[in-house]
């Protein structure tokens, strides 16, 4: 088991390095060089000297890949690429361009708000989709099943923006169950978290239930289900234990694979509901052309995604005994 985890972590290393190179290409090479970046950040009115000064202050005056003016290893070390890789891998994200705050500190400061929305959304989404897909599998091939499937497809075809805006209109304006927007840290801020969590959950539910139902029906048609029935087990026990435990493998995979969507969705959700988390930090960084913050957020997202995948693989082995030995 331990060896497996270590090997799995080692597999993630080249992926992370690849992401870092990609980030570098996107932010430093494709963005069109330090001059362009400086103009985007400082605005158009600024004098040339101010731009040069800014570029020097941010250390962007180094060459990209190779420094012919340095000597020895310095030719590679005194480059933007080296600085980028070194900073990222040592979690030295530097200072924000837009307000000069330490980015790692800022991320740590804002992460709790994001987590307080993302974690309940993830759990509620998983729970609700398992419950409803089990239910639809139970009532398969009845009018409830057909109605449920159509509803799921309808729910899938709506954009996240509609959920965000209409969800607020329904729950905060028509029903008036929650505050329209705002944030307070947990545990006092439960009522602020409720609406974004509800909306985030609903937005992902249609697809998740439909996927879950397909998985469940696939499992129901397996021989072991018939054998379990032949032993006299009740349908709800068969679904709730036998089928569910088998279905958890694909369900967990899809849940983790939907994590990036959860993060992406949280950009908009956090922004709209005024949650001061990493999602809205991303939006602000984009608006301010703050490459330093963006690259740190991109990197962290990639790392989190890898961690998620590793955790899924580990959770497989907990659910599926056949994988335990590998």
């Amino acid at each position, binding site marked *: 088991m331990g060896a497996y985890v270590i090997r799995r972590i080692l597999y993630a290393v080249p992926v992370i390095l690849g992401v870092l190179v990609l980030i570098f290409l996107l932010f430093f090479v494709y963005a069109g060089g330090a001059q362009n970046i400086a103009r985007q950040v400082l605005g158009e009115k600024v004098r040339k000297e101010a731009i040069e000064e800014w570029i020097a202050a941010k250390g962007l005056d180094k060459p990209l890949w190779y420094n012919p003016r340095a000597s020895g290893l310095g030719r590679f070390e005194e480059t933007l690429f080296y600085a980028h890789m070194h900073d990222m891998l040592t979690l030295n994200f530097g200072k924000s361009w837009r307000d000069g705050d330490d980015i790692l500190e800022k991320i740590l400061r804002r992460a709790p708000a994001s987590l307080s929305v993302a974690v309940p959304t993830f759990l509620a989404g998983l729970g609700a989709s398992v419950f409803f897909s089990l239910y639809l599998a139970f009532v398969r091939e009845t009018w409830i099943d057909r109605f449920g499937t159509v509803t799921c497809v309808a729910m899938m075809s709506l954009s996240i923006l509609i959920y965000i805006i209409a969800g607020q209109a329904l729950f905060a304006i028509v029903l008036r169950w929650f505050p329209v927007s705002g944030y307070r840290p947990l545990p006092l801020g439960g009522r602020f978290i409720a609406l974004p969590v509800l909306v985030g959950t609903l937005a992902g539910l249609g697809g998740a239930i439909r996927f879950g139902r397909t998985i469940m029906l696939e499992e129901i048609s397996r*021989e*072991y289900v018939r054998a379990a029935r*032949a*032993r*006299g087990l009740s349908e709800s026990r068969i679904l709730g234990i036998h089928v569910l435990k088998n279905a958890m493998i694909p369900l967990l995979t899809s849940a983790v694979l939907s994590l990036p969507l959860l993060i992406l969705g949280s950009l908009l959700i956090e922004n709209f509901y005024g949650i001061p988390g990493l999602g809205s930090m991303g939006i602000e960084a984009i608006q301010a052309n703050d490459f330093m913050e963006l690259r740190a957020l991109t990197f962290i997202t990639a790392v989190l995604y890898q961690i998620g995948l590793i955790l899924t693989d580990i959770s497989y082995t907990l659910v*599926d*005994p*056949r994988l335990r030995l590998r």
Partner: protein
Amino acid sequence: MSRIDPPGAESTRGLAIENLRVVFDTNEGPAVGADGVTLEVRPGEAVALVGESGCGKTVTGLSILRLLPRPPARIEAGRILFEGDDLLKFSSREMRRLRGGKIAMIFQEPSVSLNPVLTIGFQLKETLALHTGLRGAVAEKRAAELLEEVRIPEPRKRLRSYPHELSGGMQQRVMIALALAGEPELLVADEPTTALDVTIQAEILSLLDDLRARRGMGLLLITHDLSIVARRTSRLYVMYAARIVESGPTEDVLASPRHPYTKALLAAAPSRRRRARGLEVIAGTVPPANRYPSGCRFHPRCPRAHERCSHELPVWEKTGERGTACFYPEPLSEERSVEE
């Protein structure tokens, strides 16, 4: 369509299927899965139901426990009597109590019939709890006993195993142990050895035979393989295209089949070596269940078919212990030797 006279339920004990008709509603119209099936398994008796794949023997087996998926399957007519009660009239809860209780069933593929993510112990204890109410350490002990009864070594240890850690033969033994958990009076074994090696096959079959004899439970052995029914079953039913075409004491039927189909089946599977390839030797193919030919359903493939066979359904003809549905049956053994 003419009706077959049922053999008449002479005892209220054991299983008696009368005139069972099962129809599948498919997109291409209704398909007949079982048509006028009548058979009987007396307590403690081993009975074989033989036929090619798709002939309706598995449908019949599943009908007993009402395990056919509804829809598309629909039982149109007939009765399934067990200890005098018609199972078709049971509520679903009564049916659940019966399944794995008084009637148990095992299947062809033990590797997929066990839940891969649950331990054998869990599955056994769960079944024990359901039918005997045993829980905890008592159930654990009983589960181990059951494994021992089906001759699994180190039963205690095996309880903690997952199905994939066992061989195919061991898995089928576990299935049998699961079936025994509810102390059944009838065991329906649907092709229990088809997926297994030849040597294992014999072991499983003799295990079933022993258990039947020791526990005095009935056994309905559903198989396509005539070679395994001899000496292990006392009576035999042959099915073709959803109908029973011949029945009688196993020894007699094997010695002198009366229906041309039984004869062809015997000729096609004379040895164990060719078991797998089976019935290719019979000319023609089994007709699809939604397009059975008129008259005797075997007539397109029958070497003895007459004009009458193609439009008239042969009635069930009973001669002592034996019965057949053919206008021109093989004569009984003394006549047969003359013919030869």
